């Protein structure tokens, strides 16, 4: 390898590293599938293999008229995965990546809180008997369970903690 080529090679590596650091958040948002914990990472939860991702212009295919609200709040992408709790409870996790934290906050605060518990999770969270919603930075996470059980609320919170750990600030 000649010296000029070696210099160019080293410079290219340095430039690439700088670019990677500068655009780190963006790369994370493009791989939001990695934000979903694997089976067993949260006790009792099994993750189903498929993760579906919707671009903003496809979002209404997934959530119908709800999409308008998310588009206005600056949604960049939406990913969703299904889980099972001990093979009995079905649960869907939706992860919305917004353009900024204000977008996540506006969606979170647009919904009536009803009688939610407000556990310490991310920047703000609401926990119900069959649902958990929380936001962290520009991410908004919603869990919905389709059956009920006495252990579900705590189990959802545990899964929420596992997701929150994976989300970058």
């Amino acid at each position, binding site marked *: 390898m000649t010296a000029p080529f070696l210099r160019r090679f080293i410079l290219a590596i340095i430039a690439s590293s700088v670019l990677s650091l500068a655009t780190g958040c963006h790369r994370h948002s493009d791989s939001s599938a990695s934000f979903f914990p694997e089976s067993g990472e949260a006790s009792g939860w099994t993750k189903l293999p498929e993760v579906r991702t919707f671009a903003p212009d496809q979002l209404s295919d997934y*959530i*119908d008229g709800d*999409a308008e609200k998310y588009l206005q709040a600056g949604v960049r992408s939406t990913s969703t995965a299904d889980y099972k709790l001990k093979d009995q409870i079905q649960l869907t996790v939706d992860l919305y990546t917004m353009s900024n934290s204000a977008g996540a906050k506006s969606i979170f605060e647009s919904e009536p809180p*009803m009688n939610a518990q407000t556990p310490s999770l991310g920047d703000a969270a609401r926990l119900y008997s069959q649902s958990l919603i929380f936001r962290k930075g520009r991410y908004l996470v919603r869990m919905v*369970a*389709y059956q009920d059980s006495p252990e579900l609320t705590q189990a959802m919170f545990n899964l929420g903690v596992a997701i929150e750990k994976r989300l970058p600030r």
Partner: protein
Amino acid sequence: MKNGTFQSRREFLRECAIGALAVGAGKYAFVADSKVNPPSVTGAKSKVVIARDPALYANSSNPDEARVQKLLDEAMQTFFQTSDPVSPWKKIVRPGEVVGLKINTIAGPGLSTHPVFVAAICERLQQSGVKAGNIIVWDRTNDELDRVGYRLSNDPNHIRYTGTDAKGIGYDETVFTAGAIQTRLSNLLTRACDCMINLPILKHHVGSGVTLSLKNMYGVNDNPSKFHANNCCPGIADLNLLSPIRNKFRFVVADAMTGCFAGGPGYKPQYAWKYNGIMVASDPVAIDHTAWQIIEKKRAEMGVNTLAQAGTPPKYIAVAADPQHRLGTDDPDRIGLVEI
């Protein structure tokens, strides 16, 4: 109930005897004509029947199969004034017709037309003489049906369960103009079915305020997102005015077993409640107006502001009833509500 439109069954029968007789006579033509000249236009009241059973779910996440069948029969027999659970279906579907059951599955397992409810309807349709292969249960996509628990099938000898996106189906090449928007309709509606029974869900909708029968037609066309502007108004009314939808629509049998009073149209359990009901009508506007009152009542009970205060009044209902659309009536004095 708002505007005092809810009546007892006895009061209803006394006050709108003419309408009840017309319905009770059970001429197929009444239902067939109702889509073009709904009772409200002919002078009779538009009947909406709500049948409820507080024990529908017992202690389960799923409604009880036998109770669903019984509730369906009660609703249909009351609407058609008959003691026979099969004859109402003969008044809706002609012999030899292929009937499409347009379900609603976009919200997933928690808030979609229940398979057990559809099974009860299919049972009565077959008993009334409709061949299994002439029943098509459908919505937009196979994936949505599958997630809710429908077993996909396109076997012409059995009841078919399919999405418009299934191989070989798709959207009709004909481009319709609904108001100012161009759209294409599912081949399941335009080509496969002779008539359509609408099986929607009782839901709040963040845009239109309410979604029941008329909004369920957003699962028929290829570009529903184009129809969401301005609280889906006049999008919903314009879409329902398209001839394939208007001409093939026969009846609404709404799954109101679980309803949603806020946060719709997606399923958010904290805003869902067990209404334990089945609603039936031949007038899609009258039944949507009734659904609106139910949702407003539940919102008030739960301390949630009105749809108007939330900026989402269901103004599409009045537009659907206006002289340009004439899809039914939104006049509470011309809606005969029977609760059983």
